């Protein structure tokens, strides 16, 4: 059973919306923050809370790739293999991750620490090739940096994201943020990476506008 505190949080999530059904997505993120993936008991509880059938909740859950129907690792590694990242090294990075971890797409290491996914464009193309771990940015990756990253993740001590909090949070912890529950870490990390500031710097060194 979910705890009373968890059930209370679900009610607060539902209260954000004019119509309760809109809460289905944050509730699914919330279930993942507790159970690690979308469990049967999670689907049943969401259905009960929103007065829907479990089939209706499952239909939504199964549509979106971030909702997992089986456990993923504490650190979920996504290697971008969309065209630009793939061409610039994403395909090699994916191979590197497979070799190092001994797993393939949508698989998890036997110790439950790290899982792997081929992901689509994650809106960081100016930092290609890009890897996401628990949906935090790891910019400008190389095979060396990725090996360090996955080795660190397996040892429970991954390096910090490039543009994110000082310490990488777990899959469950980040799922709670996606459910709308603040972890108070918004102040950590850079405001912008180097590529983000490229045009601004060029403009300033050229002596201003126009």
């Amino acid at each position, binding site marked *: 059973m979910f705890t009373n505190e968890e059930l209370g949080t679900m009610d607060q999530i539902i209260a954000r919306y004019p119509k309760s059904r809109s809460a289905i997505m944050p509730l699914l993120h919330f279930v993942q923050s507790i159970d690690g993936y979308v469990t049967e008991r999670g689907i049943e509880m969401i259905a009960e809370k929103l007065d829907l059938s479990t089939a209706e909740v499952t239909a939504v859950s199964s549509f979106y790739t971030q909702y997992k129907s089986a456990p993923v690792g504490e650190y979920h590694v996504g290697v971008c293999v969309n065209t630009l990242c793939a061409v610039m090294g994403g395909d090699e990075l994916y191979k590197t991750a497979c070799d190092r971890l001994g797993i393939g797409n949508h698989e998890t290491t036997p110790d439950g620490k790290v899982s792997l996914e081929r992901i*689509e464009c*994650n809106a960081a193309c100016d930092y*290609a090739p890009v890897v996401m771990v628990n949906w935090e940015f790891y910019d400008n990756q190389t095979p060396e940096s990725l090996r360090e990253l996955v080795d660190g993740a397996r040892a429970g001590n991954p390096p910090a994201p490039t543009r994110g909090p000082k310490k990488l949070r777990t899959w469950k912890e980040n799922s709670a943020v996606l459910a709308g529950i603040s972890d108070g870490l918004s102040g950590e990390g850079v405001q912008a*990476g180097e590529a983000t500031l490229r045009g601004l710097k060029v403009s300033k060194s050229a002596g201003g506008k126009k």
Partner: protein
Amino acid sequence: MSKLTPVLSAAWDQADSFTIDGYKRNGGYNAIAKALGMSADDVITTIKDSGLRGRGGAGFPTGNKWSFIPQGDNKAHYLVVNADESEPGTCKDMPLLLANPHVLIEGIIIGSYAIRANHAFIYVRGEVVHVVRRLQQAIADAYKAGYLGKNILGKGYDLELTLHAGAGAYICGEETALLDSLEGFRGQPRLRPPFPAIAGLYAMPTVVNNVESIASVPAIINNGVEWFQSMGTEKSKGFTLYSLSGHVKNPGQFEAPLGITLREILELAGGIRGGHQLKFWTPGGSSTPIFTAEHLDTPLDYEGVSAAGSMLGTKALQIFDETTCVVRAALRWSEFYKHESCGKCTPCREGTWWLVQMLEDLEAGKGTEADLDKLLDLCDNIAGRSFCALADGAVAPIISTLKYFRSEYIAHQTNGGCPFDPVASTLFDAVGAK
């Protein structure tokens, strides 16, 4: 002299640019006092007169979109911001929100006031947790400061703002799919009409705007229509973010007046990576037909790019040099559309799978020249035959690469496979890829 015009990006180099204090130090939240002192209709007129057009791809005039909301209908109105940035190559809204979420919130307050909405939503993609954190904190701080909630600035205007994280579905960037998703359904596009302005979120009048469009509003209110119109071209006014990625020396965000050319941006970015030449590029993400070196001087505004046979789209300039196999690129983009097709319309759901199968054969050198015509015929049966533009986007890379590089497709057949070494196009050498 630089052709760049940093407005949205002007303060991004300040370490606290994302905080409410940082934003206010740079004049943030001054525009809401001004806007709430105007009539709602005057705000709409100002945005209309400025010529601001949607920065999310379609380029529809923002003020016109706002003016379509029926007034005095005693219905709830909604403003929904599309922050589901996921068009391949597109990477402007996420860095904007990471560096300055408050400019979006200020724009939302002004836009919601203009369309008489008392509840607004930000639909942000779910795969960017730190962006979600920054937005959460910014919204909380804006409530604390009295910019959101009841009786904003004592002007009698109320606004609630809800942040909603998506869960990994490209299709939710399509505005009606986004609304279905926000209502708690599978994100599938709706048949139009009715348009969202009449029956949008919860069947109420709704405006859906891109992040950059709404973020541009405070500057227009502060500086005026003439200032905004002093930048850009005749029908494409103002400044915008161009996102340069790929085989260039210095990729990144370049904020410039609409109408700048790729040649000019490449000069500012140090050019193509050393020892290589431009082969092909997208002007606005993978759904916009590719360009080649012959388009270096095409003005990157809505009209200029259209006239040259593509679309301005999201201004995602993805640059590929001569080491890149164009068939591999088309195949990989096709795999993306196959993965992201929502499954509602048969031509897109089935067709994108067929496209991938044919392109796999062609890339492996197992196709025939007749397959190229079959491929185009297939594209013709997908584009324009589905509810939304995903199907049109899916065929754009194929038709355009065939247009400019048909001989390269054929070379795969004569060569018995791909003639390119994929390692040559990576940023690191082969040894490291072991």
